[in-house]
């Protein structure tokens, strides 16, 4: 089947537009991120509780029940914490910031409180009531974020190094900037949705890094090959030619990946949803950035160094 063969699209004509578009997106994302990311308990500590009622409940009801919870022999008001549905209207997820002098079994205490105070709507066996319970002390939270941060940074540095050796530094620069671009914009869109960032969303971001990198390298590899015959003169047309040559591959691969991700998004269940969503955004942004960031940056860098 013929698909996107022998295309001669002038991608680089829209280079400036692409830069502008990406800058706006990236800038907007950074502002969104500065306004506050919804960090999960993995990174800032706290308690997250998922419970499954036997019938539909309203958030108001749960909030009301959390108005007075006994805590260290006194009563505290947890109704201001984040409470939301989890998949359907009988499952509820509650996220509580870490408190001073939190007792060890704080999460269990809150679960027990809900179980007792909303006894008309809970399953008979308490174990069926508990969907999940997570608690992370602030100390562990800061350690986990430190680790996640440094692992991403050192991966990027090593990749930069590898591409510099295999291609050249200017290629590596374009590839890394494209990666940073992808992650920032995906993070920005992600924070718009209100999903929270947990260790498994970090894994999704790493998947995007891997995916986008793969995509970028394939195009850069073509550029390198075509440069051998045409040199660095008319660099934009070399890049256009390379992108066109690999266009069918880029689109076919992106489409197949998108199939899997959309299926995952629709049928994958609640736990995996933030992950699938991140992937969906990331693949689209990643495909775009291989062309308009990695390659276009390369064109700009070569142009300015040839002048």
């Amino acid at each position: 089947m013929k698909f996107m063969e022998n295309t001669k699209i002038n991608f680089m004509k829209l280079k400036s537009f692409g830069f502008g578009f990406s800058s706006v997106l990236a800038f907007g994302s950074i502002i969104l991120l500065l306004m506050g990311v919804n960090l999960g308990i993995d990174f800032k500590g706290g308690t997250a509780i998922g419970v499954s009622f036997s019938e539909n409940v309203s958030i108001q009801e749960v909030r009301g029940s959390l108005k007075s919870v006994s805590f260290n022999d006194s009563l505290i008001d947890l109704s201001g914490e984040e409470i939301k549905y989890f998949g359907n209207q009988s499952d509820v997820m509650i996220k509580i910031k870490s408190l001073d002098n939190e007792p060890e079994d704080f999460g269990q205490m809150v679960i027990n409180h809900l179980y007792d105070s909303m006894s008309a709507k809970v399953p008979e066996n308490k174990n069926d009531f508990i969907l999940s319970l997570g608690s992370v002390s602030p100390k562990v939270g800061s350690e986990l974020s430190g680790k996640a941060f440094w692992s991403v940074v050192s991966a990027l540095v090593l990749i930069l190094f590898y591409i510099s050796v295999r291609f050249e530094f200017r290629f590596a620069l374009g590839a890394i900037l494209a990666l940073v671009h992808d992650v920032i914009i995906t993070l920005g869109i992600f924070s718009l949705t209100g999903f929270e960032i947990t260790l498994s969303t970090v894994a999704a971001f790493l998947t995007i890094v891997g995916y986008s990198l793969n995509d970028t390298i394939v195009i850069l590899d073509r550029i390198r090959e075509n440069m051998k015959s045409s040199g660095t003169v008319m660099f934009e047309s070399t890049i256009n030619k390379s992108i066109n040559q690999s266009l069918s591959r880029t689109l076919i691969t992106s489409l197949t990946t998108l199939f899997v991700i959309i299926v995952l998004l629709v049928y994958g269940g609640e736990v995996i949803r933030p992950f699938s969503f991140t992937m969906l955004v990331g693949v689209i942004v990643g495909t775009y950035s291989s062309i308009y960031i990695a390659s276009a940056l390369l064109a700009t860098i070569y142009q300015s160094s040839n002048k």
Partner: protein
Amino acid sequence: MDSSIRNRLLTILFVFGLGIYALLPSIRYTLMDEDKKSNLSDDQIDYFESRSIKQGLDLKGGIYIVLEVDLPQLIDNLAKNKDNNFNEFLIDLKSEYNNSSRDFFTVFEDLAVENELKLPRYFINYGKTKDQIISQLSLQSEDSIKRVIEIIQNRVDQFGVAEPTIQKQGNNRVIVELAGIEDSERARDLLQSTALLELMIVKNVESTNAIIRQIDSIMSVSNSKDVDQDDEINELFDSSSSSELGFSSLLISVGGNLAIASKDLAALKDILFKEDVIQILEATNSTILTSDSSIKLVNEIGQEEEFYTLFHLFNNAELTGGVIEDAQMRLSQAGVTAGQAVVEVEMNSEGSREWARITGANINNRIAIVLDKKVHMAPVIRSQIFGGGTVIEGMNSIEEAEDIAIVLRAGALPVPVTIAEERTIGASLGADSISKGTQSMAIGLFLVVCFIVFFYKMSGLIASFSVMWTLILLLGVLALLEATLTLPGIAGLILTVGMSVDANVIIFERIKEELRNGKSVRSAIDSGYERAIRTIVDANLTTGIAAAVLYQYGSGPIKGFATVLFWGIIVSMFTAIIVTRFVFDFVTTRKNIGRLSI
């Protein structure tokens, strides 16, 4: 068949065989019905469990707890001659350590220097200089973490969980993973209870009354002191709050015991932590503890209220849990407790001798059985007890009695542990993620196959075949590595499928390009592969680097992701470059094909 093709075929068959062999136990175990599973011998179960791909707690449900040894508490326990200076230092140490990621003993040393604390004064048993003391203390802490791991291992083994994982993390943490546990509340208590059993003599009524009067007078003095200082402020407040009326106002008498309402427990804690009160208790060698279980009473305004019994005890334990040889849950046969769960304790010979001596010397006194600073019961000793057997009553349920028996057998933790991180996944949520996850993987895979067959016809079929094998081989590798599959791991699988499809697409597009340039099928395949391989290797190696780094630095879930990704890259390069190439070569050398279905 020429020899190069035969050798390649043998290699490929060998690798495929290995993959199937590695996966076989997982497949057999998953397909086995529950009846058959329950008939397996322990050895067979061990075999299947170790050879199958393990599901992470996020998929299977279970409890993951990171316990942290309470090092500040350990230091507190080891210190002698504690004074105000030291106590303040300890409070600083706690908050400083909990808010920084530095090593405990570095923080300890810095703070000791900063506060000009004379360490030999408190730790003379551990050395004469600061450095000596710190190195000895850190040895002590290592020793206690070893003990903690041993004891927790013991407790978990006796609790009976399939495949528990217990491992040390860093200097002072223990990771405990219990898969498939339903009752997380019970598991948590079992892991965390210090299980320090103490037998302490209850002080007589006269000295108890005396100490209450003394505490009352301390409080009235300190209150009047407050009045002197904050004359004006005090006028603004209602001057009859319970704490000002003194200690005795919190107490009521219930059947010969003193009791305190549960709402006043916080006030009691405040009183007992007052320095003057601590001094009085130390001077009289006594301590005040409350009961483990509560009683419900109707108070003066007709409401039901919870009360805890208060005990005034000799501070030094006559016997501790160390002398226990065995502890078992039993249902009590006789007396008022008939039918209730109790724990029967047997002591070793040394403990039995001591026990006989204590009971002999304290006839008609009461002895309190104290577990983790909570009084379980305080019976009157009627006669001397020989043989070292005793029974602990006051359990709320059979489960509680079973668990207390377990922790008594396994021994007390040398130092308390706190929960630094906990993740409990209910079995239903885990089952939900795994069924939906596999279902959507299957649907996704099916769509991918349709899509590439639609695009590349016969060649697409070959590619689909190679993607299938990528998955099978990757799962085989994971089974061999005894890796655990978690949700991020499934993400890694998806990325691998993506990259494996991609490798095929790159190759096919190259071949098509060569065909368009007028090359014959044979040479188009050859040069297409040759050119594509470089691209594929570069793209995969860069991702491989990322995976390796993540494996090095990442924690738990990220590590799982990195493992899958790393092996996925290797396997998908194998299937795309070697396996599909072989199929193409095999087909095209046998007959001279004029047109390639691509």
